[in-house]
């Protein structure tokens, strides 16, 4: 089946979703930075009253140097590689996956597309077709399995990173787009777990912007 399980109803504008997901990594870094800031100055922050300022063009978004609206200096923070940031991004994806699975299954059951899954392979097929379709408007390009619980999904043009290009060169582009990949890893893990199967998901960029997702489940079929 191809097409959106959610039907023709366009619930979220694709461009809005793209731009929103772009903010994933910068926002996550800022949250970590703010948490670090408040941890180091915990005694003074209690006395200082929180003031809310309107966002202006020259207002620092966090204490990271040069972090101004519309800029990309936030990516230069060393926090980008910290577990705090990557785990947070993965958790966003995970929570989204858990909920999205429910939503898609509800609509799938209504249209009698899906009622239940018999094995893990079908769940992964569901990820490849319907989850990817509803998130990115396309299906995964390849699905392979060793029939021992390990799956490899390939998206030859992964939308979230396909237009990323750093002014500092290709290796910088690669390093920073890898951080974004924690999000789809979390989505896949959330989907699979909502069917009661625990798995580890990792992603790698094989040939930019192609992304390979490795999924290791404990099920051996």
């Amino acid at each position: 089946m191809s097409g959106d399980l959610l039907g023709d109803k366009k619930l979220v504008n694709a461009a809005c979703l793209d731009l929103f997901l772009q903010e994933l990594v910068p926002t996550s870094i800022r949250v970590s930075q703010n948490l670090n800031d408040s941890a180091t100055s915990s005694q003074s922050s209690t006395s200082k009253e929180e003031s809310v300022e309107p966002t202006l063009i020259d207002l620092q978004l966090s204490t990271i140097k040069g972090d101004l609206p519309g800029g990309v200096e936030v990516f230069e923070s060393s926090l980008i590689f910290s577990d705090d940031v990557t785990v947070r991004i993965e958790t966003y994806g995970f929570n989204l996956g858990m909920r999205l699975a429910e939503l898609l299954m509800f609509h799938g059951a209504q249209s009698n597309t899906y009622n239940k899954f018999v094995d893990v392979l079908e769940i992964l097929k569901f990820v490849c077709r319907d989850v990817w379709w509803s998130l990115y408007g396309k299906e995964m390009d390849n699905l392979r399995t060793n029939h021992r619980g390990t799956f490899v999904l390939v998206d030859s043009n992964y939308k979230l990173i396909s237009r990323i290009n750093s002014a500092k060169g290709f290796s910088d582009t690669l390093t920073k787009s890898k951080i974004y990949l924690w999000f789809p890893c979390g989505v896949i893990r959330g989907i699979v777990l909502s069917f009661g199967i625990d798995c580890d998901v990792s992603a790698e960029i094989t040939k930019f912007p192609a992304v390979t997702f490795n999924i290791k489940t404990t099920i051996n079929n």
Partner: protein
Amino acid sequence: MIYSFSIFDRHCNCIYNRRYIHDGPLLTQSKPSSVNLKNSIGDPLGVSITSLPPDNGSGDNFSPLGITTKSKESGSSSAINGPIPGYINKYNDSNASKLLFGIMYSLKNITAKLGDLASLFNTLKSFSTENFRVHFMESATGLKFVLATDNEVDNLQHILKELYTNYYLNHVVYNALSPVEFGTDANEHGKISNSDFINATDSFLTSLSVFK
């Protein structure tokens, strides 16, 4: 013939400046030490076709609009398969670039005031001199797209629109690692320097029949 392509942001800074060299050998690197004052002040439209050939052969015989007629340099002249010869983001803050912006700015304001019908909005599309034509488009957000060509080129509004809606949007706005706000400081503002944007606009502009 297209000589140069620039983008100015709403803070009046030149955030992208690309000059194409026609009929000249590939100039990959030019030495900043040899910048010749005559050229960097230049005439505002950057017409320096008959400017003196460089004495030391280090080749800065460019003009502010990017019109380079002949170069004494030999050497790496693999202009066919290599990168498109010219300069990228080298003259963003040159006086010529600022003068060009000034012309566009004044003309734009005068144009808007022409005509007696308030409902007829008059916008600047291009202006021409004896040898050159400068094409101009401004977005509602204040981005200004400027193409400098020779007088043979008629109307490039659709090209400017394409540069904005397709190339700027895809390689700057949708690019998470590219800023969309380039700073207000006239001396230390950011520039569009990601390779996707440069390569895509280069191949788009060079593929046009009016380029050569």
